[in-house]
């Protein structure tokens, strides 16, 4: 039997197909648990985060919009990440929760190239892309993503001006975007210029 893809599964889950959700669980539980464990450092908390996240997916499956340019794995991992950070700040660091921006306010169509890039990423490509970042940008991104620190908290921890940290986070993500698009889109002899949105031919 042909294996259903992620989009088929999330759409089936949105129709109340529990088996479809569990197929998504079987497909991504190791990545989800790895992410939660990396953030929380505690298997019980990590399991709570994964469980909560999948139940959120179950309850919100109908809100997944294929046209948004996200992929199911990325959406799912974002939910696992957010839940893990909530638990970390509440139960481990005892800090107030962050406030997510309303998703509905900036549901935009993302260019097709991004849909393809994100859906095709592997651990290897992501790691090699992150390795290209300057150390200070990499550090700022890791502290924000894996430890859930705000830019103010990172600035304090790193004893670096707030504006510098803001810049490192944004620039680091933008550079990652550029590198990943280049890695994904460049056929032999071509390089995709992500910031300008066009291809240029490598000469010579």
């Amino acid at each position: 039997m042909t294996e259903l893809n992620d989009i088929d599964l999330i759409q089936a889950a949105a129709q109340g197909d529990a088996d479809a959700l569990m197929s998504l669980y079987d497909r991504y539980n190791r990545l989800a648990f790895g992410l939660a464990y990396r953030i929380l450092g505690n298997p019980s908390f990590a399991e709570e985060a994964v469980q909560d996240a999948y139940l959120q997916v179950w309850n919100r499956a109908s809100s997944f919009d294929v046209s948004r340019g996200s992929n199911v794995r990325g959406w799912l991992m974002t939910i696992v990440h957010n839940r893990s950070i909530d638990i970390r700040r509440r139960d481990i660091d005892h800090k107030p929760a962050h406030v997510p921006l309303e998703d509905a306010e900036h549901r935009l169509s993302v260019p097709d190239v991004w849909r393809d890039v994100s859906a095709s990423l592997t651990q290897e490509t992501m790691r090699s892309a992150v390795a290209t970042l300057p150390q200070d940008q990499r550090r700022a991104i890791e502290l924000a993503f894996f430890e859930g620190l705000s830019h103010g908290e990172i600035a304090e921890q790193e004893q670096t001006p707030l504006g510098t940290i803001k810049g490192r986070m944004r620039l680091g993500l933008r550079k990652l975007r550029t590198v990943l698009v280049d890695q994904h889109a460049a056929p032999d002899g071509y390089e995709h210029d992500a910031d300008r949105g066009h291809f240029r031919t490598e000469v010579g």
Partner: protein
Amino acid sequence: MNPEDSTENERDDMHYGSLLGAAAFGTLSAEEGRELQAYLATSEVARAELAQLRIIAGDLSLLVDEREPSPDVRRRIEQAIMAGSRAGRRQVAAPLAPTTGSGSVRPLEISSQPSPTPISKAPGWRNYIWAAAASLLIAVLAGVMLDRIFLQETDDDLDGRQTIAYELTLPAPPPDLSAELTYDPDRQLFVLETENMPDAPEGQIYQIWLIDADGPTPVGMMARNDSSVAVAANRDDYATFAITVEPGPIGSPAPTTDPFFVAALGPADNSG
């Protein structure tokens, strides 16, 4: 556009643009979030950049090493889903003292620390919740009966598990409505079962919230034909369970209406 306007716009672009990285990670403070939200409404460029940065930030999960969770996680998720879809089945509740966990239920008190307020949350909503919960406690202490649905069933459930029953209060309960909110400490699972629950108004849904000192967390929804719903969560982490009516089909990120149901997740209801 005159030069002063142009300079001001550039300043805005720089200021708010500098928040986009943190916004992609979801680590903005409440004030920053409100500011950026307003700015995003005016800048398609900023919205597009944020959308892209969010995708990249989400894909950073690929950096971690995969790990195998306990098989219990899969089982608990399946159980929660199945419990939530058992429409119409009566759950028999047993009011018992808490039997697992730390046994220390978070008291109903307003944190002395300022906590961020979710964007676009109805300003008086949180106060309403606390007031409702406080009113419930006062009423119980004073022996005053509120309009409420009272749980009186005391058996173990069909699986032999012991569950804890909670009292639900409604500002104005519809006639014939009955409802039970129970919690299974072993499975860390809330189950709400209702009979004669009125349909949410057309285009709207019932959205479920668990509330702690930092505010409400959306944990699920009830579709129009649902009579029961399950929510997997650790009761010790929350002070209040509530349901509001929100725009369908996806609900709201924060409550926008007064609660339809409220249950204070205090000690188990032993009053049968």
